C-alpha cells in the first residue's frame, strides 16, 4: 500500500540548534522521504558547522557514515553530501553543500573524522571535487594514468570517452610496478583536476563503436 509522505515540515531540534548557532551558514533545510532531515549549508563554512555538530554535547554526531556527491546534470551545482549519525543520541542528519561547476572545491573534513580520508578521495576521483587540505588527494578507484575525466559526472558517457581500443591500449600501458608512499606526496603540489570542458573528448568513436 502506498503511503503518502508527510510533506509538512517536522521540527528538528538539531536543525533549530544549528540555525541558532550558525545563522549565516545554514542555507535551507528540508525533510525528505518522510522523516529524513537535510540541511544545506554554505560550503565556505562546512568544517566549522560539521565540527560543531560533531562536538556539541547536544548533538555529538560522532560517526561520519558517508561522504558522497550528486551531480544533477544540466549545469546545476554539484552537491557534496555528508551522512552523519550520532551514536550517543541515536539520530541522523544529512548535510549538503552545493558547489557551482565553476568552483568545485571544498575544505576537507579529514581533520574531524579519519573516515573521510578514502571517502573524499573517492569523490575526488569520480566527481573531480577538490578537497582542500586533504592529506593525500589522488585517484583511488580509477588507474593513476586515467585521462578520461571523472566518471560519475553526468556529462561523462557510460562507456567512457575513449574508444574501447584506446582504453585497452592505455590500460596495458599502465606501469604495474609503480607504487606509492604518502611521503612522496610532498613537493608534488596541488592535485591536478581536469575540468569537464578541458577533458579529452575529441577521440572518435567515443562510445566504443
Amino acid at each position, binding site marked *: 500500500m502506498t503511503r503518502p509522505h508527510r510533506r509538512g515540515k517536522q521540527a528538528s531540534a538539531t536543525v533549530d540548534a544549528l540555525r541558532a548557532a550558525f545563522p549565516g551558514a545554514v542555507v535551507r533545510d528540508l525533510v525528505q522521504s518522510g522523516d529524513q532531515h537535510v540541511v544545506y549549508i554554505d560550503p565556505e563554512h562546512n568544517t566549522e558547522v560539521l565540527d560543531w555538530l560533531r562536538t556539541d554535547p547536544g548533538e555529538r554526531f560522532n560517526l561520519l*557514515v558517508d561522504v558522497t556527491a550528486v551531480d544533477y546534470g544540466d549545469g546545476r551545482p554539484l552537491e557534496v553530501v555528508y551522512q552523519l549519525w550520532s551514536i550517543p543520541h541515536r539520530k541522523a542528519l544529512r548535510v549538503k553543500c552545493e558547489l557551482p561547476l565553476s568552483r568545485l572545491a571544498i575544505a576537507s573534513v579529514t581533520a574531524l573524522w579519519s573516515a573521510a580520508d578514502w571517502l573524499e578521495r573517492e569523490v575526488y576521483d569520480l566527481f573531480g571535487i577538490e578537497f582542500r587540505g586533504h592529506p593525500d588527494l589522488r585517484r583511488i578507484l580509477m588507474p593513476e594514468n586515467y585521462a578520461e575525466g571523472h566518471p560519475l559526472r553526468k556529462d561523462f558517457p557510460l562507456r567512457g570517452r575513449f574508444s574501447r581500443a584506446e582504453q585497452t591500449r592505455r590500460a596495458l600501458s599502465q606501469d604495474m610496478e609503480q607504487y*606509492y608512499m604518502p611521503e612522496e606526496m610532498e613537493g608534488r603540489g596541488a592535485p591536478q583536476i581536469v575540468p569537464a570542458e578541458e577533458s579529452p573528448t575529441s577521440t572518435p568513436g567515443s562510445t566504443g563503436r
Partner: protein
Amino acid sequence: MTRRTVEIPLARGAEMGMDARPAMGPLAPVDVAEPDIGSEQMLINIGPQHPATHGVLRLICELDGETVVSVTPHIGYLHSSFEKLGEYRTYNQIVPLTDRMDYLAPLIYNCAYAMAVEKLMGIEVTERCKVVRIICLELDRIFSHLLWLGTTAIDVGAFTPFLYAFQERERIYQLHEELTGARITTSATRIGGMMSDLPPGWAEGVRGFIDTFPRTLNEIDSLLTTNAIHQGRTIDIGAIGPEDAVDCGLTGPNLRASGVDYDVRKDRPYYDYETYDFEVPVGENGDCYDRYLVRMEEMRQSVAILHQALDRLPDGPINVEDPRISLPSKTDCMSDMESMIHHFKLIMDGINAPAEDCYFAVEGSKGELGMYLVGDGGPKPVRWRIRPPSFVNLSAIAKLAEGHLVADLIMINASLDIVLGEIDR
C-alpha cells in the same frame, strides 16, 4: 660478517597451550655469523593477485625487518561502475546489480536496496514480506560470516574449519537455489515485495538448517576459540580502541569488537527488529580475537532470530497489491486486459520515484550498509550510492597494521572481513 649472540626463547608456555610464560635464554646462547645488511627499509608488494588478500587488493608495505612500518592499500582493481550503471537502469533493473556487489551475502544487498527504494517511494510492504526479508537477511549474515570464518582460519593455518564452513555454506546455497534459482546471484527482491513467494517446503528447509547448523558451529568453535595457535595469532593483534574505531568510521562487527554498542538493527530498527529477542555481542579489546568472537556470537544470534521469524511467518500476500508497483500474476495477465496493461506499463516504463532523496541503512554482515538514492520523478535514479561498509573498514588497515609483523597484517586484513566487489563497486 659480524657475529652476534642469539638467545633462543624456549618454545614452551603460551604457544604450547600451557600457562607458563616462555622461558628466555641464556640457556643456549649461540653465536651466529650475520651478513652485514643495510638497515634501510624494505618495500614489499602484496597483490593484487594474491591468495591472502581475499580478492584483488594490493598492499604496499614498508618493512623494517619483519615489522610493518606502514601499509598503503591500493584498491580499484575491481571497479565495475555499479553506481554509474544504476543511473541508466530502472529501479527494478538495478536489483540484479546489487547481488553482484557483495557476492558473499547477496540477499542482504537485494533486501537493503529494495528497502531503500521503498522508503524513497513511500511503499509499505506486507507483513509476510517483512518476515521473509528478515529471514533472508539473517540467513545471509550466517552465509557471509561462514565464508569469513573458513578463509580466515586458513590464514592462521587451520584448514579444517574451511571444509566445515563450506559444507554448511553448500546447504545455504541449496536454500538460495530453491528460493531464487541461483546459487549466488539471487536477485530475490523486487520493489514492493519479492520475486515470488516462498516455494513450498522452503521454510522447513531453513528450519532444518538452523536446527543442525549450531552443532557444526560448536565444532568449529571448539577447534578455534581456545586453540593456542589461533589465540596467539589473534589476541592483541590489530587492536583499536572505541574512540578511534568510531573516528575511522568502522561499523558492524569491527566496531562492536571495540566495545561500541552500535547496531542498526537496534538503533534504527526496521522491519520490527525491536520485537525480536536477540543480543548484540560487544567485544572489549577491539583486536582480531574479539572480532572473531563477535562474529561467532552473531551467527548464534542470527539463528535465534531465524527461529523467531519462522515461528511468526504470517500468511497473506507477499507483494503489495498496487498494480503500479507489483506485477500482476501471469494468469491475470493472460485473461484480463487491465492486468495486461499494468504489466506492460510496469515493464516498459518502470516505477516512478518522487524527486527526493533517501538514505536507508541496514545492518549488513560487514557493517552499516547504506543505500542513498536520489530520485527525479522518473523511473531511474539520478544517483544511486552505496555506503560501502568494507570500503570504510578497510581504510583503517593502515592504522591497525602499523607495528605488527607481516604475518599479522594478513590476519588483520582477514579479520576486517572485506569483499572487494563492494569496496571497488
